[in-house]
C-alpha cells in the first residue's frame, strides 16, 4: 500500500442507466467520487454504455478520470467488462451491438462464444454475488475453477480478476472465501470493489423502490428482493482499505488496474464520413463549386452582398473542417429531389447562405438579413445542426432507409431519447411500491402530474386532500412518498427512439457506440441521446416528419394532375388574395397560423408581406407571450403606441419589429453592434443568458458585455438599460431563421388554400392526423368555401380522398372506421377493373366480410348499388352469412327490405360514428329553428353584431384550450353550420361550469360579445349543454 486510503479505485459502479438497478445518476457518482478523492472510477452499467457520456462530462468537470465498461448479461450471469484501450472499446461496442440486435428488447444475452469473439482489449471481472463465478463457487468448486479457466482462456492472463465485494453479509463472506480459494488455485488475481448502486448511504431507499418496480412487487412483500443493508454506496478509498485490510492485494490491484486502463471517451475515434468527390476535387473545392453553382440559380443575379456572405461562410466551414457535413446533407437533399420528395431545412440552418445555395433551406438569409453566427461560428466549438423537414410517413421513411443504405446498417442509426420518470409516472410507481391503492395512486399522480421537481403541497395538506381515498396507513407514508417522488424525478426509465435524429459515421458506427433495435422495423438506434452525441462530437442530421410537407406535396401532385403546375418555387411572393385571406383569419388548415391564438392575432396583425408572416409565426409562442412582446408589438403596429428604442444604436436592429425584440438573432446583433461582440461571442452570450440558472459563464459574458458597451462609449444608465434589455429577453426570444422557414410553409399553404382549395383540402384530408383541427372541421370549412364534399361510395371512392371536377372532393375509403387499408385498396382496385353491381359481387371480388360490409353500408357507401343505407345493412347481413352447400342456392321469398330508411338525424349519427365526419347538414342545422326561437345567434352572425352586446351562441366544441400562458383562462372553439365562434372562459367560470364544459360535445354559451378590430369572441357568462344526443363528434382538446 503506497499511502493510507489511496489504493482503492472503484471499478464496478452502476448508474441509473442500469435501469432499475441503481438510484445514482452518473453525475452524482462523479461528484461523490471527486469528493471522496478518487482519481479515477469506472462506470459499468448493465448491457450498455448509456450513461457513459454523462459520466464523462461530469467527471471532466470534477477532475476524476472516467473509465468505461459495461456489465454484460451472459447466459450464466453477469460479467463486468472494463475497457483497456480503443480496441477494447470497439470490441465492447460490437459485443453489445450483437447482443442487442439479435434479441428482443430487454432480453440481450451473451454466450461464451460472443465473449471470445470480442475479448481483445477488455478486462473481465468475475462480478458480484450475481456473477456466474460466485454461484458456481457455492455449488461446485470444481465447476467454479473450470469456469475461471474458461474465462482465463478467453481474456488471457492478466486480463481476468476475481472480484470481491464486502457488504457485511455473513453469506457473502462465505462465498468470498470460496472464491479466494478458487482464485488461488487458478492463479487469478483478486480485485476489491463495492459495486455501488447509489452514491450515498441514503440512496438505498430509492434503490429498494427501484427493485420493487423492477420485480413488480410492493415494499411490504418484497422480502429478500430488497437490499440486506445500506452498504452498497460509493465508499471512500480509506473505508475500502479498512474493509479489505486482510486482502491488501485486492485493493492494490484495483488501483493498478485502473492506472493501466488507457481509454476514456475522449479517444472515441469518431469521424464523420468523407463525402466522395469527383477526381481532382477536394471536399472544400467541391462544396465551393456546388455552392456557387446553386447561388447562381438562387440569386439572379448573384449580387456582391450574397457573394461576400458566401465567401465568409465557406471560409468558416473550411476552417472548421466541415465541408463533408454540408456535402452529405446536400446529398440527402439531392436524393429527395431525385425522388420527388419535398424537403426543407429548418432551424438555424436557415441563417446560412451556403445552405440556401445548396438547396437545403428555402429562405434567403441575405435578403432577410439573417445572422449566420446563430448557425455556425468559430467560437462555438460545436457541430452545426441542420434539421430537414420531410413529408411524414412513407416518404420520410424512404429517406431514412436511403441513409441506412448509403452508410451501411452498422454505419448509421437513429439517436435515442431517454424516457425519464416525471411527475405522473414517478407518483404512480412510487405509490405502487409503497403499497398505495390504485385509486390513491391515480389521485396522487393527478395531483403531482404537472409538477416535476417540487410538490405543490406538503405531506400534511396532501393527507387531508386524499383522506377520502386512503387508509390511515397510506396517509402515514405520504411523507416518505413525497421524498421518494422527488428523488426519482429524472431518473431514466428506458430509452426510446428520437423522432428524426440520425447519426452517421466513417467506418463502423457500432465501434463508436452500441446499436440496438428500435421498435420500428428496419431501424436501429444508438445508446446515446442527441445531447450525448453532440457532446462527444458525433454529428447528427435531423430528418423530421412534417404533415404539412406531405400535404403540400400532395397538393402539388393534384394540381399537376389537373393540368396546373405551381410548385413552391413558382408561388408568387406577394399574392394579395393570400394576404386578404390571412388578414381575415380564414386560416383553418394553414400551417402554423391556424390555431385559435393565431386566428385571434391575424386580424390585428393584418399581414401584408412575408416578414409580417415571419413575425406572426414567431410571436405567438409561449416565450414571446410570457416575455410580454405580443401586445406592445400589436399596439405599435396599429399605431396605438409610438415606436421607441431603448438606445438609438438599436434602431437599425429593432426597426423591423417596431422596436420590440422578438427574435434571438436580434439579441445577437445588439451585442455585436453595441458591445463589439463577434458573431460567435454573441451566440455564446445568448446561450449563457438562456440558462435558467445563472452560472459562471453568464457572469463572465455579462462582464464582457459591460466592457464592450463601455468601449463603445455607452455608459451609466444607457449601458444598464441595454444589459437589462438583453438579459430580459434572452429567455424568451424565438429564432428568426426558424420562424422564416415555417413562415414560408405557412405562406405556401395559405396560397394553395386561396387558389387551389379543392386540391389543398383533399391533400389535408389525406394526411390526417395533422394540424389543429379534426377532419370534420376541415370538411365544414371546405364546404363554407363552396366545395362539394361527396360521400364515400364503393363505386366512386379510392382509398384516399380524390378530386372530382373543379369543386368537388370525394371522400376516400380510408375514412371508414374499421376498414383496413389492404381491404380499401382491394375495393378500389377491383372497382377500377369493373364497377360493382351487387353486394354479393362486392363480397366476392373484394373479399369482404360482415364487418366491412356493414361498416360501408352504414355510411351510405352502397348508394351506387341502389341500396339506401338501411336496405344495404339488411342485405349485408344476409350476404355475409355463410349459407352452406344445402341452402346456398335456395331462393328466398322476400318482399324487399322491411326496414325504414334512415332520417337526417340517423344519417348524421351514422356518419359521425362510421367516419368521424358528415357530408350532410351540420348537427346544429337540425336544431336551428329551436335555437333561433331562443335568440341564439349563428357564428357567422357574430361579426355583424355590436361590441358589448349580450349574445347567445351554440355549437359543437371542436377545440378546448387552456394554455400555460393564459393564467387559467379556457378558450373554446365552437362550430355551427356557418363557422367557428370563439369563447373565452374566465378561471372562475371554468370552475363553475367545469363538468358541463368538459363532458358535453354541444354547448350553448351566453355572454358578452367582444368584437374589436376584426377579432370576435364571446366572454362566457352562462354555459349549458345542448339538448342533443352526442353523435360522436370529436374535439381536439388541450392540443
Amino acid at each position, binding site marked *: 500500500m503506497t499511502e493510507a486510503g489511496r489504493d482503492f479505485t472503484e471499478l464496478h459502479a452502476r448508474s441509473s442507466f442500469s435501469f432499475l438497478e441503481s438510484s445514482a445518476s452518473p453525475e452524482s457518482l462523479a461528484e461523490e467520487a471527486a469528493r471522496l478523492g478518487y482519481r479515477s472510477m469506472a462506470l459499468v452499467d448493465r448491457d450498455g454504455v448509456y450513461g457513459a457520456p454523462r459520466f464523462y462530462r461530469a467527471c471532466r468537470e470534477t477532475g476524476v478520470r472516467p473509465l468505461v465498461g459495461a456489465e454484460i448479461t451472459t447466459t450464466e450471469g453477469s460479467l463486468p467488462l472494463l475497457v483497456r484501450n480503443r480496441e477494447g472499446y470497439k470490441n465492447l461496442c460490437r459485443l453489445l451491438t450483437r447482443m442487442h440486435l439479435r434479441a428482443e428488447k430487454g432480453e440481450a444475452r451473451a454466450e461464451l462464444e460472443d465473449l471470445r469473439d470480442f475479448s481483445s482489449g477488455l478486462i473481465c471481472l468475475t462480478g458480484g454475488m450475481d456473477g456466474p463465478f460466485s454461484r458456481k463457487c457455492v455449488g461446485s468448486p470444481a465447476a467454479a475453477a473450470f469456469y475461471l479457466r474458461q474465462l482465463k482462456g478467453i481474456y488471457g492472463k492478466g486480463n481476468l480478476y476475481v472480484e470481491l465485494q464486502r457488504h457485511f453479509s*455473513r453469506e457473502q463472506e462465505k462465498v468470498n472465501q470460496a472464491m479466494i480459494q478458487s482464485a488461488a488455485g487458478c492463479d487469478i488475481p483478486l480485485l476489491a470493489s463495492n459495486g455501488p448502486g447509489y452514491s450515498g448511504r441514503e440512496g438505498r431507499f430509492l434503490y429498494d423502490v427501484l427493485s420493487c418496480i423492477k420485480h413488480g412487487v410492493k415494499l411490504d412483500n418484497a422480502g429478500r428482493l430488497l437490499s440486506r443493508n445500506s452498504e452498497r454506496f460509493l465508499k471512500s478509498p480509506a473505508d475500502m482499505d479498512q474493509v479489505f485490510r486482510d486482502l491488501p492485494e485486492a485493493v492494490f490491484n484495483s488501483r493498478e488496474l485502473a492506472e493501466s486502463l488507457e481509454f476514456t471517451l475522449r479517444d472515441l475515434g469518431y469521424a464523420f464520413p468523407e463525402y466522395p468527390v469527383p477526381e481532382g476535387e477536394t471536399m472544400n473545392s467541391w462544396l465551393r463549386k456546388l455552392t456557387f453553382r446553386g447561388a447562381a440559380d438562387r440569386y439572379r443575379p448573384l449580387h456582391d452582398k450574397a457573394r461576400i456572405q458566401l465567401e465568409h461562410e465557406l471560409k468558416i466551414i473550411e476552417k472548421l473542417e466541415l465541408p463533408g457535413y454540408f456535402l452529405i446533407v446536400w446529398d440527402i437533399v439531392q436524393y429527395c429531389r431525385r425522388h420527388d420528395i419535398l424537403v426543407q431545412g429548418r432551424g438555424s440552418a436557415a441563417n446560412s447562405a451556403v445552405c440556401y445555395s445548396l438547396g437545403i433551406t428555402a429562405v434567403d438569409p441575405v435578403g432577410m438579413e439573417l445572422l449566420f453566427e446563430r448557425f455556425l461560428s468559430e467560437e462555438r466549438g460545436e457541430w452545426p445542426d441542420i434539421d430537414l423537414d420531410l413529408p411524414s410517413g412513407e416518404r420520410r421513411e424512404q429517406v431514412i432507409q436511403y441513409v441506412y443504405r448509403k452508410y451501411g446498417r452498422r454505419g448509421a442509426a437513429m439517436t435515442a431519447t431517454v424516457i425519464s420518470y416525471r411527475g405522473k409516472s414517478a407518483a404512480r410507481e412510487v405509490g405502487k411500491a409503497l403499497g398505495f391503492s390504485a385509486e390513491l395512486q391515480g389521485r396522487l399522480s393527478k395531483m403531482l402530474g404537472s409538477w416535476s421537481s417540487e410538490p405543490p403541497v406538503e405531506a400534511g395538506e396532501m393527507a387531508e386532500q386524499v383522506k377520502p381515498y386512503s387508509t390511515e396507513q397510506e396517509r402515514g407514508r405520504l411523507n*416518505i412518498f413525497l421524498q421518494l417522488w422527488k428523488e426519482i424525478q429524472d431518473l431514466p426509465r428506458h430509452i426510446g427512439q428520437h423522432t428524426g435524429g440520425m447519426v452517421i459515421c466513417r467506418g463502423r458506427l457500432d465501434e463508436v457506440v452500441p446499436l440496438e433495435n428500435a421498435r420500428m422495423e428496419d431501424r436501429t438506434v444508438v445508446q446515446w441521446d442527441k445531447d450525448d452525441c453532440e457532446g462527444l462530437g458525433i454529428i447528427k442530421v435531423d430528418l423530421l416528419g412534417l404533415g404539412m410537407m406531405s400535404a403540400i406535396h400532395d397538393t402539388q401532385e393534384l394540381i399537376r394532375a389537373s393540368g396546373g403546375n405551381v410548385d413552391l418555387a413558382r408561388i408568387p411572393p406577394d399574392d394579395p388574395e393570400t394576404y386578404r385571406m390571412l388578414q381575415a383569419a380564414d386560416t383553418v388548415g394553414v400551417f402554423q397560423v391556424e390555431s385559435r391564438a393565431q386566428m385571434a392575432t391575424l386580424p390585428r396583425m393584418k399581414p401584408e408581406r412575408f416578414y409580417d408572416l415571419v413575425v406572426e409565426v414567431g410571436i405567438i409562442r409561449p416565450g414571446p407571450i410570457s416575455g410580454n412582446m405580443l401586445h406592445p408589438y400589436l399596439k405599435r403596429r396599429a399605431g396605438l403606441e409610438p415606436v421607441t428604442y431603448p438606445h438609438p444604436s438599436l434602431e437599425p436592429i429593432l426597426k423591423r419589429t417596431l422596436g420590440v425584440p422578438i427574435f434571438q438573432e436580434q439579441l445577437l446583433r445588439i451585442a455585436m453592434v453595441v458591445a463589439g461582440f463577434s458573431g460567435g461571442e454573441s451566440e455564446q452570450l445568448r446561450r449563457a443568458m438562456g440558462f435558467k440558472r445563472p452560472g459562471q459563464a453568464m457572469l463572465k459574458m455579462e462582464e464582457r458585455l459591460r466592457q464592450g458597451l463601455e468601449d463603445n462609449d455607452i455608459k451609466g444608465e444607457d449601458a444598464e438599460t441595454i444589459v437589462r434589455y438583453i438579459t430580459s429577453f434572452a429567455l424568451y426570444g424565438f429564432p428568426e431563421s426558424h420562424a422564416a422557414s415555417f413562415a414560408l410553409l405557412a405562406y405556401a399553404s395559405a396560397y394553395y388554400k386561396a387558389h387551389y382549395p379543392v386540391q389543398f383540402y383533399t391533400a389535408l384530408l389525406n394526411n390526417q392526423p395533422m394540424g389543429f383541427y379534426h377532419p370534420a372541421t376541415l370538411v365544414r370549412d371546405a364546404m363554407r368555401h363552396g366545395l362539394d364534399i361527396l360521400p364515400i361510395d364503393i363505386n366512386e371512392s379510392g382509398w384516399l380522398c380524390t378530386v372530382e371536377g373543379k369543386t368537388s372532393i370525394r371522400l376516400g375509403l380510408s375514412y371508414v372506421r374499421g376498414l383496413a387499408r389492404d381491404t380499401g385498396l382491394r375495393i378500389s382496385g377491383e372497382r377500377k377493373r369493373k364497377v360493382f353491381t351487387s353486394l354479393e359481387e362486392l363480397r366476392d371480388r373484394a373479399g369482404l366480410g360482415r364487418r366491412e360490409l356493414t361498416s360501408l353500408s352504414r355510411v351510405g357507401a352502397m348508394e351506387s348499388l341502389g341500396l339506401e343505407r*338501411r336496405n344495404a345493412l339488411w342485405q349485408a347481413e344476409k350476404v355475409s352469412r355463410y349459407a352452406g352447400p344445402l341452402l346456398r342456392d335456395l331462393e328466398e321469398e322476400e318482399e324487399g327490405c*322491411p326496414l325504414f330508411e334512415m332520417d337526417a338525424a340517423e344519417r348524421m349519427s351514422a356518419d359521425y360514428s362510421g367516419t368521424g365526419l358528415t357530408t350532410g347538414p351540420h348537427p346544429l342545422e337540425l336544431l336551428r329553428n329551436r335555437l333561433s326561437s331562443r335568440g341564439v345567434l349563428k357564428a357567422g352572425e357574430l361579426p355583424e353584431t355590436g361590441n358589448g352586446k349580450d349574445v347567445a351562441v351554440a355549437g359543437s366544441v371542436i377545440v378546448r384550450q387552456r394554455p400555460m400562458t393564459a393564467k387559467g383562462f379556457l378558450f373554446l372553439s365552437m362550430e355551427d353550420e356557418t363557422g367557428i365562434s370563439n369563447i373565452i372562459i374566465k378561471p372562475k367560470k371554468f370552475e363553475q361550469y367545469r363538468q358541463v364544459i368538459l363532458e358535453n360535445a354541444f354547448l350553448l354559451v351566453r355572454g358578452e360579445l367582444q368584437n374589436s378590430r376584426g377579432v370576435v369572441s364571446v366572454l362566457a357568462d352562462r354555459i349549458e349543454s345542448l339538448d342533443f344526443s352526442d353523435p360522436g363528434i370529436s374535439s381536439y382538446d388541450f392540443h
Partner: protein
Amino acid sequence: MAAPLYFIATYSSSADLLFKSRQLISPRSHPVHPGGLVFEVNSRYRQETLDRIAALSLANLRIGGAFTRTAAVFAALVAPGTILPYRREKGFLASFPLEHLSLQAELPAGFLDTLHSWGLRTFGDLTEIAPDALAARMGQDALQLRGLASGEDVSLPESFREDLVYREKREFDWPVASSEALLFPLGEMMEAICGRVSGAGLAVCRINLLLTGNDGENLCKKVETALPSCNSRLLISLLRLELEEIILRSGIKSVELEAFPARARIIQHSLLEAETLEPEEKGLTLSLAERSWPESSLGIPGVMDTHDPDPGDCGDWRESRLLKGRNRNLNEPGGDNGCRPGYEGNSLHLALRRERPPRPLELAEGEIVSLAGPWKSSGCWWVGDEMRNGWTQEEWDLELKNGELYRVSWNHREKIWYLEGTYD
C-alpha cells in the same frame, strides 16, 4: 276442455321466505333469473294464488301474471303488478325497448348493435321482421329472441336442485347415557353413509351430528374435515372428539347424522413416493391440537421472506405459509447482492440455538479467541412516516477460549451487547 295454465312471476327482496313458502302457494313452481319464482297454476285459480302470495307479506314484491311464463316475467320485472288477460302478451310487450331482452336471455355479441343499425328499437319492431328473413341474417338465436319479444315461452322451465345431503337416523328404545355407548350406533351409521357417499364417487366434507335428549333438549355439532374423506373410522374419531365435550342433562333418545358430500380427492400414487401419513389424518391431529392448546399458541412455524436475522413467524394452521405473503421462485437473484433467498439455510453448516428474546451479555476481553463481523442488516424503513424508522441489526460471531461459538449483536441505541444464540 281444461282451463289453460296461468303463470305468475314473483320477485321479492325476502327471497328466502318466498322460496321456503313456495309449496304453500302452488305445487308447481320454477326458479327464474334473477332470483325469482314463477308459479304455474290453473287459470281458474289465478286470483287465489295471487291472494296466497299477498298473504305472505313479502318485502318489495314485484309480481306479474300472463298466459306465458315469458310475458309474466317481463311483466313482473318491467311493469310490476301487471296481470295480463289471454292473448295480450304481444301487444303488452311491443313497446318494450330491445335492451329488455337481456332480462331473460344472454344476447349474442353485436345483436343489439345490428338491430339498432336497422332502426329497430322495440320488441314490437323486432316481431315485425319475418322469422325466415331474420333467421337468414342472424340465425336461430335471433329467432328465439324474437319469440321472447313476442312473449312466447321459448325454453323449458328450470327445475329446483336440492342440496345433496346423506342422512342416517337412529331412535333408541331407551336413553343412551354415555358417549362411548353412542359410538357404536354412530359407527354403523357412519359406515352406511360412507358406503353411499363413496358409491356416488364422492367424499364427506362436513358432518352435522344432531342429538335429541330424553328431556327434549336438542344439540347440534358440526364437524368439518381437513380434506374430503370416506374413511369412516377417521370420521368417527373426529366425532368422538366432539362427543367428549357434550354434557347432556339426560340420556340421548335419538341421533341423526347429516353428511355433506364433496368431490373426492384424486391421488396419483407413485412407486417413488415416500410413505407418508394419510393427509386426511392431519385433520385429526389438528383437531387434537386445537383441544390441547389455546388458539393463540397454535400455528405453523414458517420462515419469513426478509433479511431480518430472526424471521420467525407463526401462521394460521389452515394456511400454508412457508413463505410469507408472496410466492416466488427461490432461485431468482435477490435485491442488490444477488443473494438467493433461502441461501442462509443452505450455507450454514452450524446449527444455531437462538435466544428468544436475546439476552443482555457482558463480554470480557481476553475470553474471545476470534471474531467475525459485523454482519449488518436493516429493513422496513418505509414503515411509519420517516425513513429512519424500521429495524437495524449488527451481529458478530465470537469464538471463546473454551471453544464455544456465539452469535451476539450490538444495540447502538442501548449500547448493550446481546446474546443472539449459540452455535452447536
